[in-house]
């Protein structure tokens, strides 16, 4: 079938190759959905793995859902970057924040750490713009530093800090609003 898939001996394949074989389809699929071109989708996947070249040791479990999501985050950002460069303007709105986020002093005493509240926060995260949720996930769930996130997503360090700040404030605002409504 292909050169790589003909490699029978799993022991000889590196972690890097295992990662590729386990998740290449979802990465190509994600990338194709944005770029609508198979060749460009392949370029995006290749670029994503280039960015992961020195970060592979931070991935422990190759086959888990968390790793799968991580690779999708990387390839999605790479694809959007490629798309925007082709179109020479940002159609995916990753450059400017459309709504103003106000920094609210959240009263933590008002938050009850319950399963429902966590679920609401998760729903808010999933409804958050991808450019903020991706950076928040890479920072807090995957524990990458801001410099590493900048390298992985191909954006500037300042941009990473701004997105983290705005994303957190948006979620704080949502959480505070839900708590106060009750």
């Amino acid at each position, binding site marked *: 079938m292909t050169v790589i898939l003909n490699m029978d001996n799993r022991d000889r394949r590196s972690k890097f190759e295992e990662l590729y074989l386990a998740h290449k389809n979802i990465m190509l699929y994600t990338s194709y959905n944005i770029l609508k071109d198979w060749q460009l989708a392949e370029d995006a996947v290749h670029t994503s793995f280039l960015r992961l070249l020195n970060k592979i040791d931070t991935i422990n479990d190759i086959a888990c*859902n968390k790793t799968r999501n991580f690779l999708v985050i990387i390839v999605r950002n790479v694809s959007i970057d490629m798309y925007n460069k082709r179109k020479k303007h940002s159609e995916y709105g990753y450059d400017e924040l459309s709504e103003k986020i106000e920094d609210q002093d959240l009263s933590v005493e008002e938050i009850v750490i319950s399963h429902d509240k966590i679920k609401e926060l998760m729903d808010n995260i999933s409804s958050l713009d991808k450019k903020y949720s991706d950076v928040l996930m890479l920072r807090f769930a995957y524990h990458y530093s801001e410099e590493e996130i900048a390298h992985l997503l191909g954006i500037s360090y300042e941009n990473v800090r701004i997105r983290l700040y705005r994303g957190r404030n948006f979620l704080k605002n949502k959480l505070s609003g839900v708590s106060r409504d009750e």
Partner: protein
Amino acid sequence: MNKELKDKIFCDILEYALELECERAGKELPAEAELLQNLSISKEFEKRMLALFRVRKRKTVTKYILSLSKKVAVCFMLVLILNITLLITVDAYRVNFFNLCVTVKDGFTTFVFTEDNRENEVEMSRIPEDWDTVYLPVSIPGGFSIKNSISTGSIKRIIYSDKDNKLTINFSYYPIKSSTFSIDTEDSQMDKIYIGANAGYLSVKASDGEERTSVVWNDDTTAFSLISTLDKKTVINIAKSVKKIK
């Protein structure tokens, strides 16, 4: 509760929620097998990925070699420091360390340097003790030893011969301006040579079916003469190895 603590608590809650959201988002993605039928992967892409895997392997090997090299370098430095400390502090270690290799070239045995001067002591035993200055060639062909040592006025002569007493080396020296000696150069060719930084003359004469090579030279204080039936190159090497022993 202060603002920093509130912020920390919120970050911890957010971290937990994000971990769960990552897991959920990953689970909701379509499975690899489902996507296989709709995907088209080119051979060119597979080749590019193979090249990338090779790069990754090379980086891993290089990283391993670098870390190993650092460990080897540290060990080497430790051994070096230990050796230097022992050289400085322990006499026996220093003596053994400075007994260097003996090189054998074409029948020559050369002692480059030795703190243990046993060989010189053997040769010195054949030199009269009342000689105030002693010069000896330290590079002598194998099998030769001192047969006789003669003092005539200020001229000192040392005669080497081989085991069969067939080949001889006549080595003489005297202080400049105190005396002279001459060598037979009739019907021979004289060539100017240098023994170290000192100018000298080489003469090769055939006599009774054998060639005799003579070399004369001097330094600032002493004149030297070396006469032998050995070949020219060997005689020059012997001359160049003459050193002041006493």
